[in-house]
């Protein structure tokens, strides 16, 4: 007689299993009278890297900040693995801060200016949220954090405070901090924009490795080389609207819209600068 396994994993309906990790559905956002996002929709499948490109002020960062509710969209829905962000299921009432915090803990965020906590060491930055937010065992979290430091080649900086790190090192630590949360999706908000040119490559290398490892990522970037090489899909935003969505080869070789063509022409002189630096 066949023996039933002690624990069986519940089967997800086919639809739920294929549902995107992140779905943004018709997001609108205004700051005062200024429309920052207008009816923006996109979806990100598990393991996909989606790069959001666009000129400064096109709403890229605001879109990213709406995903984890650092900015509250005026209209529209955002779903993380099928769960609506910001509102409770059934009742549709706004989530409490504690409920929002639970959702945010599943969305990793890498900021333009690193935003490392200055009172904690590198290791402290990595283990703080997994221990105090996710309530995971300290030994397990420290071991995982050390493995992440190995991965980003910063093990020797374990007990150093962020103030003693270079910009590139800070951003690599910020990426490791986000990974330590085992996020469903990782958001990068212009992660290389605040770095000296010679430090950009080391951060892009880590990001590209993550993309190859199958991490689900949404990357707001001005690094065209990275977008071309690492993205599965390019979303081009202008004046808060999605102007074009295309695979990178199509977007960079044969953009469909005049606005995207104009945008790319400005980068044509040094389109792969970031990757060239990295590989050099």
């Amino acid at each position: 007689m066949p023996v039933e396994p002690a624990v069986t994993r519940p089967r997800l309906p086919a639809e739920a299993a294929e549902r995107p990790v992140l779905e943004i559905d018709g997001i609108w956002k205004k700051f005062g009278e200024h429309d920052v996002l207008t009816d923006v929709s996109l979806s990100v499948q598990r393991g996909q890297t989606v790069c959001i490109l666009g000129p400064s002020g096109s709403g890229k960062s605001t879109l990213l900040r709406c995903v984890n509710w650092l900015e509250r969209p005026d209209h529209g829905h955002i779903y993380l693995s099928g769960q609506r962000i910001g509102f409770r299921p059934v009742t549709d009432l706004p989530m409490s801060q504690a409920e929002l915090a639970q959702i945010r803990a599943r969305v990793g965020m890498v900021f333009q200016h690193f935003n490392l906590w200055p009172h904690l060491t590198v290791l402290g930055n990595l283990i703080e949220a997994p221990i105090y937010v996710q309530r995971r065992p300290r030994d397990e979290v420290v071991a995982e954090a050390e493995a992440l430091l190995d991965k980003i080649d910063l093990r020797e900086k374990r007990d150093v405070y962020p103030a003693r790190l270079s910009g590139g090192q800070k951003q690599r630590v910020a990426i490791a901090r986000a990974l330590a949360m085992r996020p469903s999706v990782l958001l990068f908000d212009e992660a290389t924009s605040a770095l000296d040119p010679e430090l950009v490559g080391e951060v892009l290398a880590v990001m590209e490795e993550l993309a190859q490892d199958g991490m689900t990522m949404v990357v707001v970037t001005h690094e065209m080389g990275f977008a071309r090489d690492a993205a599965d899909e390019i979303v081009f935003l202008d004046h808060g609207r999605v102007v074009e969505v295309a695979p990178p080869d199509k977007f960079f070789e044969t953009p469909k819209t005049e606005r995207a063509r104009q945008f790319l022409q400005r980068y044509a002189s040094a389109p792969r600068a970031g990757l060239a630096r990295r590989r050099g």
Partner: protein
Amino acid sequence: MMHEFAIVWAHKDRLLVGFGNTVVLSLLATAAALTLASPIAIALMSHRRPVRALARGLVDGMRCIPFLLLAYIVYYALPTLAIRLDNWTAGLCALVIYNAAYMAEILRGAWASLPREHVEAGLAFGFSGLKLYRRIILPPIVLACMPVLGNQMIQIIKDSAFLTIIAVPELTHEASAIQSTYYVPFAAFISAVLLYWVLCRLVEISVGAVERRARARR
């Protein structure tokens, strides 16, 4: 003159008991005032106007009352409202309430100048409410305002001398008792001054050590 100091030396046990009480009183008052200052600082930074106004009223009120008067009120006036505290408890309460208001204002100032990005990172990583305050906001603001908090602790030590008027057996009270018994005011009070100076220097040295550690994080 030396004879006067010899009399004080002969009663050094009494002076040291007073010194010990001042140390205990100051440490307890500092710890309790800092603890109480946190919720007041949170209220001062609240988005809710009534909460903010209430906290502001408390802080401004305390800053406008002479400490001596507050000690009188807590010890002599509260019993008319059926709240009767012994002199130790009344003295400690007065020190805590009075200095918590100052410390709350110090914390609020440091919090207001804390870069928004650090708090935002805390929110993005799932911190909220008290956990956000305790783990992400409080440590850097305490480190940032450590020298000012050190000054406030010195103020607590000096304020504790006022508690002699409600007969708390702290350093000034004991020095005063020695001088009134043997009429050696110069030696008794100078001895007390030296002991206060030692205590305040210890606080300054400790704060300096913490400040050096804080600098490593900047």
